[in-house]
């Protein structure tokens, strides 16, 4: 391996772009984790569901991938809220390991339902701009990735505005900081949880629409991205919005540079190493305050 400037420049560009998507994947998870202290192991599988929805709208319905946002976002919101209501809400008071096991079970169900129904073949979508690129200095920028980055940023800003400026958003933040106080102030905590879970899932709907133009869809696509989301959330700090954004960028860059330097999937070892180190030495994350 030799460190050519071109290679590194490319890694930088790719890392930033993909980091934006990672950030989007993670804000939903960090929101849910922060509000309800639920570790949703099926997070990646929700993304997978979203991607299949988008895929079929594009290939069977002839929709433009970005138009599918109109469907994928509400669809994922509903799916997330429904699953939450039926399976997770009843056991919110149970030990966290039970919740983890349940969401693990959910992820198995979703993954294997998809496997049974859609088979294992990766599905690719070709659109007019899938292959369009332009040069930024020595690096090549793939337009779909750029759009994904932009879209992610927009979605993140919208979410931030929602959390800061709307009553519902403030209720979510209140519930995540101090459950008892929120209840005392008249916040309908159960409904807030439902909303938070729905929104967290809806973020994945956005991500799905943005990712299908440049990433394949398959039943197991959620495995890796689910893990990435976890790593980003831990890195950034559980429940921390800014942490998810910054963490997403860091992991995006780590992945990109790792792939440039090491062969094959060995590059992921860096990402996992970061994960383990953070868990050991700073489990509250970069932006998390206080002890866990």
């Amino acid at each position, binding site marked *: 391996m030799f460190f050519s400037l071109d290679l590194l420049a490319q890694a930088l560009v790719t890392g930033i772009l993909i980091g934006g998507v990672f950030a989007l994947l993670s804000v939903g998870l960090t929101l849910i984790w922060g509000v309800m202290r639920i570790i949703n192991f099926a997070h990646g599988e929700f993304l997978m569901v979203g991607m299949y929805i988008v895929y079929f709208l594009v290939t069977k319905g002839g929709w433009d991938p970005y138009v599918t946002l109109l469907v994928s976002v509400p669809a994922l919101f509903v799916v997330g809220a429904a699953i939450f209501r039926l399976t997770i809400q009843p056991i919110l008071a149970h030990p966290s*390991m039970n919740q*983890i096991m*349940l969401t*693990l079970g959910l992820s198995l169900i979703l993954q294997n339902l998809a496997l049974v129904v859609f088979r294992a073949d990766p599905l690719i979508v070709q659109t007019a701009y899938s292959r369009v690129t332009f040069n930024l200095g020595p690096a090549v920028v793939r337009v779909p990735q750029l759009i994904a980055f932009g879209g992610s940023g927009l979605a993140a800003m919208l979410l931030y505005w929602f959390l800061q400026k709307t009553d519902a958003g403030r209720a979510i933040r209140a519930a995540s900081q101090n459950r008892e106080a929120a209840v005392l102030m008249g916040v309908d905590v159960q409904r807030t949880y439902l909303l938070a879970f729905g929104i967290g899932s809806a973020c994945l709907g956005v991500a799905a629409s943005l990712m299908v133009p440049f990433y394949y869809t398959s039943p197991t696509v959620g495995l890796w991205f689910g893990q990435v989301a976890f790593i980003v959330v831990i890195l950034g700090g559980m429940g921390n919005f800014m942490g998810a954004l910054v963490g997403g960028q860091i992991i995006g860059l780590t992945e990109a540079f790792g792939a440039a330097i090491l062969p094959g999937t060995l590059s992921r070892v860096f990402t996992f190493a970061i994960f*383990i180190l953070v868990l050991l030495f700073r489990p509250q994350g970069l932006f998390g305050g206080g002890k866990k």
Partner: protein
Amino acid sequence: MNKYTILFLAIVLVILFLLPLVAGEYLLHMIVLVLLYAYLATAWNILGGYAGQHSLGHGVFLGIGAYVSTFLFIQWGITPWLGMWAGGAVSALVGWFIGYVCFRYGLKGPYFALVTIALAEAFVYLTSNVDVIGGAKGLEVTWLGHRPDMMEFDGKAGYYYIILVMTILGVIVTRWLYQRRSGYQWIAVRENEDAAEALGVDTLRAKIEATVLSALMTAIGGTFYAQYFTYIGPRSVFGEGPSIQILLFAIIGGLGTLWGPVVGAIVLVPIAELARAKLGGSFGGAHLLLYGTVMVLVMLFMPKGIVGLAQNVYARLTRRRPDSAQSAKEVV
């Protein structure tokens, strides 16, 4: 253990030992799977059930056992009967290291679970990229013919007896551990770690101990796994598949009970295998779908697992007063 239980177990054992004389290959294969997972789940239960540290990455130890013994076999013709102890030793060492680092830094509950997942994934990626141990293609166990001394058999009966004895020994050994001070200490750590520390329990050592024993036992199972399936690959042993299945049986059967893992395997494996057979190879995920569904249902409706539920029902049926309910410590 009362008379009736012993009698019951004795009868079951006699049947199991005589079974190969009458049973067909498919039935034996099924029981081998049940016993293998019962064994692995029992091993997991030491750390996850009794000590309460839920490892979601036990595939690490399964894989180490499988890879070490298989590598020794393929490279230098060393018999797996010896190789399994080498694998066990390496696994115990790795387990010690993981336990020490994680628990020394106070990782608990979900955070510990996440680290174990990350470690298992890291092992998948590492082994996929090291060609001398097969890389992504994995390793195939060379078939030397019917060689009991090399743990290779014509037909299933040989493997069947091995895993039967392993499982019996596994249950006996864990039962013995649970009746000693260590068993009490693991439960105390699980129930209230601070209280345990304040009462003189070296909680760090107890957790590491549980990790090491669990790792050792699992790795030996890994050797059998390799010999029986004759093929091991990075994702097939280190991946989340085996890791999750192992703990699934323990949880559904009853976490932290002696027989829970065994019961869980007995109940679930046959159903899953039948599902896999009926729905054909193309629906490779059918059994996992089943497992996932069962897991969700169990967590919602009977979180103490089958054995836990049975214990509650038994307590109510025998009209015991509330203050003589089943203790977590009661070992059958």
